[in-house]
């Protein structure tokens, strides 16, 4: 009886010690993630400039529907998402399959080189890309010399090509990073599965679609979700490569939120409303990706 009582109080003591260990983190994440998140929700129902804010109900939300800049920003962000994320995921998967060949020479070298872009700061590489893709920049010069194009492409100042430049830039920066996840997953696949498939006469393509892809499903899901979250928030590249231009043709939702809050006359209420659009999109798209990918989970 006595021993049991002491045992219980010991457990209670351990339990309390455990809370002590996690306390700072819980307070920090509570104050710098969840609290501002709720604040933003309240803000989205307020209107006014600077700190002079009053509740207006849903007027900010109805404003979204007639706001053409918002529509442009939403459209651009979706273009980045729909084109760039699948492109990068496929490329990362493809490269990792090529690299996952134990007989390949210079494997480490290739891997390190392709991963290298992931060490750069977004601002630094964006500025480099801005000059490389300038009207009289090196990319145009090389393409002209190789006679691939006959006149310089306006990579930065043409509304269509500027979006392409942004997509090329993000793909350059993140493909190697995503590739690492696929490589480590591929290394965990038991080689004998492929052996058996080969004996059964399965082609390389069939092995890839029937064995590799299903086994990589969790990684595909993980990289798609994180890339989607990342691309929906794209900011640094656009500010430093195109400044959102020409016109608003490359502006993303995050750029618009920043402009609404810190560039134009500060409209925190409406900016918060726009930011909740990203929140809702992330929740919806992540949910969708989990649905599509996970029949079990």
């Amino acid at each position: 009886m006595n021993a049991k009582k002491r045992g219980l109080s010991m457990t209670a003591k351990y339990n309390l010690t455990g809370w002590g260990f996690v306390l700072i983190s819980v307070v920090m994440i509570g104050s710098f993630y969840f609290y501002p998140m709720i604040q933003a929700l309240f803000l989205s129902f307020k209107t006014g400039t600077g700190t002079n804010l009053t509740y207006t109900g849903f007027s900010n939300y109805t404003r979204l529907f007639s706001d053409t800049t918002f529509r442009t920003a939403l459209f651009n962000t979706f273009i980045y998402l729909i084109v760039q994320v699948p492109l990068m995921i496929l490329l990362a998967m493809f490269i990792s399959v090529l690299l996952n060949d134990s007989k390949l020479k210079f494997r480490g070298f290739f891997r390190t080189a392709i991963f290298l872009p992931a060490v750069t700061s977004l601002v630094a590489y964006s500025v480099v890309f801005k000059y490389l893709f300038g009207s009289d920049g090196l990319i145009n010069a090389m393409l002209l010399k190789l006679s691939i194009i006959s006149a310089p492409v306006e990579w930065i100042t043409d509304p269509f090509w500027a979006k392409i430049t942004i997509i090329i830039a993000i793909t350059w920066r993140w493909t190697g990073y995503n590739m690492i996840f696929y490589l480590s997953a591929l290394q965990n696949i038991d080689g004998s599965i492929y052996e058996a498939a080969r004996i059964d006469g399965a082609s390389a393509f069939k092995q890839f679609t029937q064995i590799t892809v299903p086994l990589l499903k969790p990684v595909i899901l993980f990289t798609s979700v994180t890339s989607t979250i990342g691309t929906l928030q794209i900011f640094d590249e656009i500010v430093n490569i195109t400044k959102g231009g020409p016109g608003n043709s490359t502006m993303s939702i995050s750029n618009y939120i920043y402009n609404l809050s810190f560039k134009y006359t500060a409209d925190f209420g409406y900016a918060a409303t726009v930011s909740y659009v990203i929140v809702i999109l992330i929740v919806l798209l992540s949910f969708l990706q989990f649905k599509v990918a996970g029949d079990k989970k």
Partner: protein
Amino acid sequence: MRNPKRIFTYVFLSIATFISVFPFLWMIISATNKSVDVTKGRLLPGNYLFENLTKLIETTDLWTALWNSARISVLTTILSIIIASLAGYGFEMFRSKAKDVVFNILLLSMMIPFAALMIPLYQMFAGISNTIPGIGIDTVASVMLPTITTAFLIFFFRQNSKMFPKDMLEAGRIDGLTELGIFFKIFMPTMKTTYAAAGIITFMSSWNSYLWPLIVLQSPNQKTIPLLISTLGSGYAPDFGLIMVAIVIATLPTAIVFFVMQKHFVAGMTGSVK
């Protein structure tokens, strides 16, 4: 050896390598060239590196920006890995149902986009400015505080502390160490590689961070390296050679860490240590 599939693999990987590495080469070459030559796309190294560097030091606040970036990144890294490892250890070693629920709630914060946080956070720190000036807008504390604790890092430490032998905990208790003593004297030294990986990834994201510093750091003497580069790059008559030197300087610390500690670096980024 001569099968076409192999050849395709080598050709494809060589092209991918070239595309990945080329901007780095160009950036380094351009740092040694005159501004005019950079715009002309000169591909040969020049002898203007020293001149570009001198001009960069003379015309910009390079030292201030370097010092600000270094101070913020180092402090953030140290505090981050201590706070997150305490939590990761706590969640794993003192497991309970309630703690698991809290842990899962913390993980949800990874889904919260920064875009939705930046305005309330800005308001929060602008508000604090009047009462406690030391942590308000335009201070080192305001840049660091929201970024110190991330659910990713807590998760990372929790995953890795699963491999920490629990008998060492018991041994520490029998030796009469306090719970914190066990953490600092036994857990920390044993988990060195985990700390290295976590430290690298935190340092890198802090060194490279742009949007939040852009919002809170307003006076010129508080600017960090990414802010400096962004300002230089958007000037009306940019000196390209000078900017390339600044970019090389900004990239060096993370590149060096990458080459010296590649394994830890990748482990930190992908959130896994063997």
